[in-house]
């Protein structure tokens, strides 16, 4: 069955679930209370899924999420009231309240319109909070959303009190969904759509940028992910879902009460996400459904025990956090169970082969079709002109100048603290130089962020390996292919034919690179479980996946044994030739530096003290002095001078 048809069947079957649930609820005349609980489950699942996208997948803390619900609930209710008051005034009443199909259509349309207005309000709100706070790393989003939730509450309350003297907005007409009052089907369909959208997004090459940001934001931007954009995407999408849920809730209860969307509600939303296992969609859906039901059970406690409800709830929360920090399901998904069952059906032996050292014989062909070819031109020239950076009073690098021509392998050496990595950080946009210029083919790179610089063709590895530790080896490389994709988020969500084509291509390319680095057998292992040398190789493979023209390697041989170092040297030359790269290399191991570099720059205390061919550098007295100190005889002379 073609994949498109299969998707359609799955979608229709999935949409059947809410309708069936509604039908069964009506058929067996479930009590209004039970129906309300089922409605609530649908809503809370929607909310949990949206929040799981923000917290679990993108790793950002939104702790004022109820504020977006509040916006959705208030603006949709206001819209409905406004339409009922003004636009339907001259209308035939039968058109709104009649039994016919037309009337039902008008009511349903009005509900959809109101929900749209509500989600729009939530989207605008999330952009207002997200844009300033998501540019920064750390807890800023948490703090800003916390404040935002309170602002929304305060402003809505002030508005309501000024205009109606009341503390809530009431809708005086029950809108309908499919000729029924807002009900189980509507909430469950919303939940279903939320699950599908988020699942499709996070299981695509585009969407894997989100867990990459969660794992290591700097590394993510170094492989070309525009981190602010993706964080904002996750945040706005999650908030939009909250807005939709809020809109639905206000039309079910016929009230929009800002007081019910304050900090405590936000926490109630986060709890199932964390309990279920943040980063597991299955976990958060199950946990939020179970949690909603359990809270209702606690409501049924005898009144004497009522007061212990919050105590019980808070106590369980603290205990679970301490005893099972990763949540009940960890990162486990339903899809993993299917994969496990499939694996069991097949004979054993599909396991990864043990890692083998890099073989220099019979290298695979690097010029495979797809993203990595097509940039056949010579690498542009990179020049650094009098690059200087100061941290407070410390000048870490002073007037660093460098000219990298196409296809060179240049070494950057110097004692610890000389400023080598700082140079890399300036070139790749992690730090902004205090003075000087970096030019790539005569265009300045100063002020560009890491992702933009990676897009211009400069890739790097890190001194302290920065892999996406919790993701698989394959995913680490696939994420780096991210910038070459022509399909974006919509294609990932709607699963267009082009999406499948590119997804296949991305997988092929990634596997190709892994084969080149002898990592193919480890493709499905978690990156952090790899031995040190393999992690270093994976980092180079990941950098190459961004199809760079210039590759900056920061101490690639650190922690490798002599055999691995020998292999690394031939590997560096090989990738230069096969990919047609320019390579800039920081390294402490002199055998590697002297063996592979064609030209060497020596830094000491931020100053360039020597530059030249390896054999000249080896004998340069200033270099020897920087590494080993002055010869004994020179000391008195220096003293005399002073």
């Amino acid at each position, binding site marked *: 069955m073609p994949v498109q048809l299969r998707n359609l069947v799955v979608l229709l079957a999935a949409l059947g679930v809410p309708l069936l649930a509604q039908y069964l609820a009506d058929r067996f005349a479930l009590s209004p209370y039970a129906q309300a609980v089922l409605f609530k489950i649908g809503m809370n699942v929607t909310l949990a899924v949206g929040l799981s996208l923000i917290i679990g997948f993108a790793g950002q803390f939104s702790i004022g999420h109820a504020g977006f619900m509040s916006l959705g609930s208030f603006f949709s209710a206001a819209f409905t009231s406004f339409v009922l008051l003004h636009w339907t005034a001259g209308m035939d009443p039968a058109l709104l309240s009649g039994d016919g199909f037309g009337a039902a259509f008008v009511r349903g349309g009005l509900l959809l319109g109101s929900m749209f207005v509500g989600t729009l309000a939530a989207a605008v709100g999330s952009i207002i*909070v997200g844009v300033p706070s998501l540019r*920064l790393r750390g807890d*800023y989003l948490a703090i800003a959303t916390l404040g935002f939730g*309170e602002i929304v509450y305060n402003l809505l309350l002030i508005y309501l009190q000024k205009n109606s003297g009341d503390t809530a907005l009431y809708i005086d007409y029950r809108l309908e969904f499919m000729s029924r009052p807002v009900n189980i089907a509507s909430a469950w369909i919303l939940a279903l759509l939320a699950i599908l959208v988020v699942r499709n997004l996070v299981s695509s090459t585009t969407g894997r940028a989100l867990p990459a940001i969660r794992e290591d934001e700097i590394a993510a931007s170094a492989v070309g992910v525009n981190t602010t954009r993706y964080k904002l995407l996750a945040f706005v999408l999650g908030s939009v879902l909250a807005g939709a849920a809020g809109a639905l809730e206000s039309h079910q209860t016929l009230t929009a009460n800002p007081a019910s969307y304050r900090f405590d509600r936000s926490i109630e939303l986060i709890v199932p996400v964390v309990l279920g296992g943040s980063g597991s969609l299955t976990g958060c859906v199950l946990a939020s459904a179970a949690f909603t039901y359990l809270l209702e059970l606690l409501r049924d406690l005898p009144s004497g025990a009522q007061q212990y409800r919050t105590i019980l709830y808070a106590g369980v929360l*603290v205990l679970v956090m301490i005893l099972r920090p990763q949540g009940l399901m960890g990162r486990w998904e339903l899809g993993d169970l299917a994969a496990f069952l499939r694996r069991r059906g097949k004979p054993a032996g599909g396991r990864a082969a043990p890692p083998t050292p890099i073989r220099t014989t019979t290298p695979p062909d690097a010029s495979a079709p797809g993203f990595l070819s097509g940039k056949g031109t010579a690498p542009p020239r990179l020049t650094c002109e009098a690059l200087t950076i100061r941290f407070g009073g410390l000048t870490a690098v002073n007037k660093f100048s460098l000219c990298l021509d196409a296809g060179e392998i240049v070494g950057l050496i110097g004692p610890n603290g000389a400023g080598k990595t700082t140079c890399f950080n300036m070139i790749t946009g992690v730090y902004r130089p205090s003075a000087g210029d970096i030019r790539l083919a005569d265009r300045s790179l100063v002020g560009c962020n890491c992702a933009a610089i990676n897009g211009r063709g400069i890739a790097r590895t890190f001194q302290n390996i920065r892999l996406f530790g919790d993701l698989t080896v394959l995913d680490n490389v696939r994420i780096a292919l991210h910038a070459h994709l022509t399909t974006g988020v919509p294609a990932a969500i709607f699963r267009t034919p082009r999406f499948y084509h590119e997804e296949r291509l991305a997988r092929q390319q990634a596997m190709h690179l892994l084969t080149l680095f002898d990592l193919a057998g480890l493709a499905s292992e978690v990156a952090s479980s790899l031995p040190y040398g393999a992690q270093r190789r994976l980092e180079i493979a990941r950098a190459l996946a961004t199809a760079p023209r210039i590759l900056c390697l920061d101490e690639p041989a650190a922690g490798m044994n002599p055999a691995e170092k020998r292999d690394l040297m031939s590997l560096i030359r090989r990738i230069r030739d096969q990919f047609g790269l320019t390579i800039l290399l920081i390294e402490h191991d002199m055998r590697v530096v002297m063996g592979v570099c064609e030209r060497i720059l020596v830094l000491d205390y931020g100053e360039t003290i020597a530059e030249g061919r390896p054999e000249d550098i080896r004998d340069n007295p200033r270099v020897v002095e920087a590494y080993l100190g002055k010869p004994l005889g020179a000391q008195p002379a220096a003293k005399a001078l002073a």
Partner: protein
Amino acid sequence: MDWFISQTISGLTLGGVYALIALGYSLVYGVLKLINFAHGDVYMVGAIAAFGTACAFGWGQTADEYVRSGVMLAMLAVAVVSCLGLGYVIERFAYRPLRRAPRLNSLITAIGVSFLLESIFQLPGVFGASPRGFPQCELPLGPIRLAGATVRLEQLLILGGTLFFLLVCRYIILHTRTGLGIRATSFHHDYARLMGVNVDRITSLTFLLGSGLAAVAGVFVGLYQHQVDPLMGVNAGLKAFTAAVVGGIGNLAGAVLGGILMGLSETYIAGSAFSAFRDAFAFALLILILLVRPGGLLGSVAPEKV
């Protein structure tokens, strides 16, 4: 002008209280990089402990000056001791097991502890859900006239007390071995440990210091606003936390500055025609600061080491 002076004095009084609480947030954030959501509730416990002591000693019924001053000191002592104990227990049993867990876990645990404290104190057997009036007591001096404005003696007492405890805190941080340990631990856990700092002990002491300051704030607010309730920590905590961020979280002078700023702006706005926007303004200020100066007024965003 009179309006301005009296509002300024009230603002400084409120700001001082915020500063005392904000210091706790900032200290703990510095050492653990954790937003200690339960801190507002430690302050609440301080206020309630003072309330309990005041009731037990019949404060407000006796006319004897010495007895009254003695009871006031006892209130302070009981509040501080109970908050120290609470702060230690929270750190030891809720946060320490999570030292190596993802940050979100500590955050959720902090919120859980906060809810736990609030709901325990709302039990009828413990304190009850509704606010209770703090026993009132005529102070020897009536309202004082200052440049045409009326100032309550409590305000001056609180201002003086706040200043005193801020100086004590400053002394501890800057001039004691513990303070040096706190500063080292804030800088980097492992480096501090390598230099022989007992990080666990320092973390506990930091919680003790923060909790003690919160207790003092609790007593002052009880005296000043004549009312305590189990949820009083929620709003005050949120405001003080905002103050800490506005000043630059992790920066102690910033926490004090942020607290004073919050207190002043809140009273000015409350006394103006826009009084309804009091809380909205505080949080709008927060978002504005994050926008223009992400590190806060006195703090700075350190570049991450790559």
